């Protein structure tokens, strides 16, 4: 079974080394998609024996994710794992994440920070509120009943990854993936994962970051659906 780890990265020079050391010990196929970082992200990533794809200009996390997924599909990956570069995810969670797909139970596995009880108490209040609202919103918009809608840690089977069509280049791809799961009737489950909140990761993270970022992403998402 070929497992590919797809990591979109934009200006992550401070943490990318740690993320890669953590993953490199456990996985063979790792793809970094550098979304035109201004810092040393690429130089650091290239010190590892991994694949680095480079966007010439910044196109957003959704776009970078899609580039990585397309490459992995081209290499006939059996399982594609999406992983955030900001060091909030843990390599040991990936094994639990890919297991249901390897066992042939489901096509999509979504990481959830709320299934893990000790974990959910660590989540900052503002993020918790936004994430809970997102769960309610998702019930209506994507018709999926899940506990954590915006977790960057996911695993997709080859079949799921080839069916999911991402059109949102920026942050709204999180909801878009869920829409696509419903639309293509892909089987899915949630698996508990740990999220580490550091000062660093708090400055990233799209919609959770502040209210105006949240409104902007929501607007993009709704317009995207309207145009489609």
């Amino acid at each position, binding site marked *: 079974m070929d497992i590919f780890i797809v990591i979109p990265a934009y200006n992550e020079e401070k943490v990318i080394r740690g993320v890669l050391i953590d993953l490199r010990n456990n996985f063979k196929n790792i793809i970094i998609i550098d979304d035109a970082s201004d810092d040393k992200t690429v130089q650091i990533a290239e010190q590892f024996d991994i694949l680095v*794809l*480079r966007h*010439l200009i910044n*196109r957003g996390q959704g*776009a970078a994710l899609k*580039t990585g997924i*397309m490459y992995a599909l081209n290499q006939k990956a059996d399982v594609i794992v999406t992983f955030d570069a900001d060091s909030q995810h843990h390599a040991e969670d990936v094994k639990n994440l890919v297991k249901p797909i390897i066992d042939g139970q489901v096509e999509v596995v979504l990481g959830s920070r709320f299934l893990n009880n000790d974990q959910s108490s660590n989540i900052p209040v503002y993020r918790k509120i936004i994430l809970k609202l997102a769960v309610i919103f998702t019930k209506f918009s994507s018709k999926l009943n899940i506990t954590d809608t915006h977790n960057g840690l996911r695993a997709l089977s080859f079949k799921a990854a080839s069916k999911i069509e991402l059109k949102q280049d920026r942050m709204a791809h999180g909801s878009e993936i869920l829409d696509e799961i419903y639309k293509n009737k892909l089987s899915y489950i949630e698996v508990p994962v740990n999220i580490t909140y550091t000062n660093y990761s708090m400055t990233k993270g799209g919609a959770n970051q502040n209210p105006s970022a949240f409104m902007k992403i929501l607007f993009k998402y709704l317009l995207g659906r309207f145009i489609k």
Partner: protein
Amino acid sequence: MIIKILVSIFVLFAVSRVYLRYRDGSVRVIAFIVWLLLWGGIAFFVWWPKFSDIIASGVGIGRGIDALVYISIVALFYAMFRVYIKLEFIEHEITSLVRNLALSDKLNKIKDKRDNENEKKDISSN
């Protein structure tokens, strides 16, 4: 009276720009005619505002100038929507260009490496 002259001068300026665009081929005949009608209409209503009152009362709006403002706003919103769609389309085109460059760069390198290795093999087998 001054406003009539000022608007007329601006209309002439705008029409001359449209004509230049048409002549160098960046505006098609249809678009050229639409722009001419639009600017001509503006000039017409500035000189003969009474006509807008007739149209306005026909559709149940009190003053002609109000009708013009309503129509303009609707037209502007529609134009904005068109521009927005166009922009989204261009953004997607740029993304797929950037993506294909990133992918073809890597896939070519892998192919080159393989070709080189095959060449070496050919040379050593000879």
